[in-house]
């Protein structure tokens, strides 16, 4: 409660909190708030020539190239995209953080082996894995989430590894060690807090990139398949229409941006509250 109260006092954090709550609520309540079915291709949703309709009283955010209501698709698409942006991306950052810290902290064989494994994973053609999985498995949200987690942890691990290597040689860590602190204590109390800002950067920017990545993977056949909407595939399907029908690209783009940004504001505020000495970082 204390946390919530402090956050409300900061306008930026409050804004972030409201948006995040709103997005989650709307995603959950999509069937109640959506004006149409997200998959219904309406006869009056296209012009006679077959062009999508711009925003109007009937279709608040306009229609897509199949005559479906964009607002309804965005609302339902939030469900897919939140799972990708939060769960898949969250798992990737967690794994990356873990492997990065361990390989940066541990010397000798284990640390080295972990980092070479990371290099291998980074050099590995992830797109190809996606295509093979798409052809072998039934496409589903959870498979695409798994693939994203599998692919994205590598970069986090690389960054965290480099930062950890810098940290372990710093005076305060050396001092702790000479005082006989255990590995667990050093890792958890002295190294991890310095890495939290990095985790926040990747965790929040990653929301936007993974939501878009999901669309690429759906395109290859492993994600949600048409007509199920996701923010990424709404943009992806219509990106060449950005001139003829700008609402199809810029509205979902703004939604992704706003969501990722809001999570970032909340993340920053939370971290400031939990660790006042690090105020302003991240």
């Amino acid at each position, binding site marked *: 409660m204390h946390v919530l109260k402090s956050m409300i006092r900061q306008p*930026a954090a409050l804004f972030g909190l409201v948006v995040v709550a709103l997005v989650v609520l709307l995603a959950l309540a999509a069937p109640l708030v959506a004006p149409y079915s997200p998959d219904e291709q309406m006869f009056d949703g296209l012009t006679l020539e077959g062009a999508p309709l711009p925003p109007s009283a009937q279709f608040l955010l306009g229609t897509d190239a199949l005559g479906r209501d964009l607002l309804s698709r965005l609302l339902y698409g939030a469900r897919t995209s939140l799972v990708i942006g939060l769960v898949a991306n969250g798992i990737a950052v967690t794994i990356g953080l873990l492997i990065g810290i361990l390989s940066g902290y541990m*010397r000798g064989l284990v640390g*080295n082996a972990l980092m*070479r494994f990371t*290099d*291998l994973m*980074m*050099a*590995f*053609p992830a*797109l*190809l*894995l996606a*295509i*093979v999985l798409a*052809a*072998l498995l039934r496409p589903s949200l959870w498979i695409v989430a798994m693939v994203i987690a599998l692919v994205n942890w590598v*970069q986090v691990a*690389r*960054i965290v*590894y*480099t*930062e950890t*290597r*810098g940290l372990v*040689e*710093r*005076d305060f860590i050396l001092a702790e060690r000479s005082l006989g602190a255990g590995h667990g204590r050093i890792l958890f109390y002295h190294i991890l807090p*310095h890495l939290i*800002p*990095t985790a*926040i*950067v990747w965790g*929040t*920017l990653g929301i*936007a*990139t993974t939501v*878009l990545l999901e669309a690429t993977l759906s395109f290859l056949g492993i994600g949600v398949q048409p007509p199920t909407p996701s923010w990424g595939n709404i*943009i*992806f399907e219509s*990106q*060449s229409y*950005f001139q003829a029908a700008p609402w199809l*690209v810029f509205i979902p*783009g703004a939604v*992704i*941006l706003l969501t*990722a*940004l809001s999570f*970032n504001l909340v993340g920053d505020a939370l971290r400031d509250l939990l660790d006042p000495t*690090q105020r*302003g*970082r*991240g």
Partner: protein
Amino acid sequence: MAFLLLRRLVQTALILLGVAAITFLLLYALPADPARMIAGRSATAQTVANIRRELGLDQPLLVQFWTYLQGLVQGDLGRSYAQKTDVGALIAARLPATLILMAAGIFVEVLLGIALGVLAAVRRGGFIDRLVMMASFVGVSAPQFVAALLLLYVFAVTLAWFPMSGFGTFAHVVLPALTLGILGAGWYARMVRSAMIDVLNQDYVRTARAKGLSSFRIVFRHALPNALLPVVAMIGIDIGQFMSGVVVVEAVYGWPGIGQLAWQAIQQVDIPIIMGVTLVSALAIVIGNLIADLVAPLIDPRIRAR
């Protein structure tokens, strides 16, 4: 140092072998028949069988892989199924374009990222800081295709400052490099900002400040070098992204890089090209990371190379 390099070279070779093996296995598992793709629609079963035999696709997987490795150690990447020409030559023809775009793109990213990151860190919590954060989110949330076309509209069509498409002169590289740079700079800006703040909070910087050193000197002589550590790691990562993931930007600007080659090869199940591109980009990634690891001790002498 020599021993270290040697060890890393052996590890690199092992990683490449691993990548080759996994990729080969994946391509084998792919339910798409290269012989069928070459034969096209009108081919008879006999024609398809003939093509399969001529390509050696009727051999067991291990035999195929062994044959491939034998060629590989002699520097032979095999012949493209669809183009019936040497894969090494195809990649060599496109590699310079990819490397130029990679260098230019990373240059823009790093320059822009560091500048914005330093600015945000120094003006932490202020208007500029918020603006930089906002901009970095806009960059990473923008779909590449749309961003590339928007830049093309503004700078090549309307203002006609740069050519719309092609390869060869400095003017050609500006727009694709800017597109990639602007979209990617957000990562660098945020990493630099966060690392800078961490450094600026440390005792030795506080000491320096207490000694009355100018803030310019503090930022550029003391704080920034330490903040470069994650930047170097980021570049290592970016090399991987640039080797395989810039198909869209290449296509919009008609840039003859290997991304387009790879994308077409995947569509056609042209296994030798897919293998070749994968191995070349894997090599670039491993070298990029190796350099990042070797450069780290130069930036922060406390880190020991390993």
